[in-house]
């Protein structure tokens, strides 16, 4: 059952991920990216990260992607025009990317040689209780720093996007 669920959602994630890259219209890419994020949320759940699966759906698929779709709508972004694309970049880039992927897959295979298989429910440390406890005791300082970061981001977004006064 675990394997079937993993395979279904991994295939959805990879197909949607390819779609993000090959679609020429930004709105199609955005919809595909929502598909990637939704299937990743299911995979988080399979790994025992309940809180993060909920946060993934709410923050990523909800808030951030709404922002993207809103900006695409606001700018009336059309399809990408295929000009000025260097042939050399594609010729070199695709083999380099495949080599990069192969290298990463190789090292990842070697990372945990005797790792046990992933079973749903074997790790129960990802509940909101456990995450909250770690966040407010061990990681309190980063949490406070991140709140300052968000404040700065809000101010930056407001300053950048406002209308020029005169």
């Amino acid at each position, binding site marked *: *059952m*675990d*394997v079937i669920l*993993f395979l279904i959602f*991994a295939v959805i994630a*990879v197909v949607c*991920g390819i779609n*993000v*890259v090959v679609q020429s219209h*930004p709105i199609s*890419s955005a919809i595909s*990216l929502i598909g*990637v*994020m939704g299937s*990743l949320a299911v*995979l988080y759940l399979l*790994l*025992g*990260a309940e*809180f*993060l699966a909920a*946060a*993934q759906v709410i923050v*990523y698929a909800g808030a*951030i992607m709404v*922002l*993207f779709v809103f*900006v*695409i709508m606001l*700018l009336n*972004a059309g399809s*990408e025009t295929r000009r*000025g694309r260097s042939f050399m*970049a594609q010729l070199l*880039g695709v083999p380099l*990317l495949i080599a*990069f992927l192969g290298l990463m*897959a190789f090292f*990842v*295979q070697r*990372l*945990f040689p005797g*790792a046990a*298989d*992933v*079973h749903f429910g*074997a*790790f129960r*440390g*990802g509940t909101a209780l456990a*995450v909250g406890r*770690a*966040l407010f005791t061990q990681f309190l300082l980063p949490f406070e720093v991140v709140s300052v*970061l*968000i404040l700065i*981001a*809000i101010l*930056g*977004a407001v300053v*950048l996007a406002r209308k020029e006064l005169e």
Partner: protein
Amino acid sequence: MTAGVPLSWYLILSAVLFTLGVAGFVFRRNIITVFMSIELMLNAVNLSFITFSYQLKQVNGHIFSFFVMVVAAAEAAVGLAIILTVFKNRSTLNIDDVSSMKN
């Protein structure tokens, strides 16, 4: 006990998604799609963090992943505001046309 998923499958899926994000970042010309490719890479790294967190039976990876999400949200807000400003000043979304710092 039913058959489980090997740990490396999760990590390889993460590597595949990260490579797709790099491909989108390098090959695409639309500034919004480039930005979405960055989000794809961040998601792939989050999957790695959570997989390691499962393997080590610790919650620390979840915290890191949570902070990555927060930073991604802040980045999206500021980045999209920058895209709006660029579009307002230049009326283009093609990153090849935004090259005034090149020379």
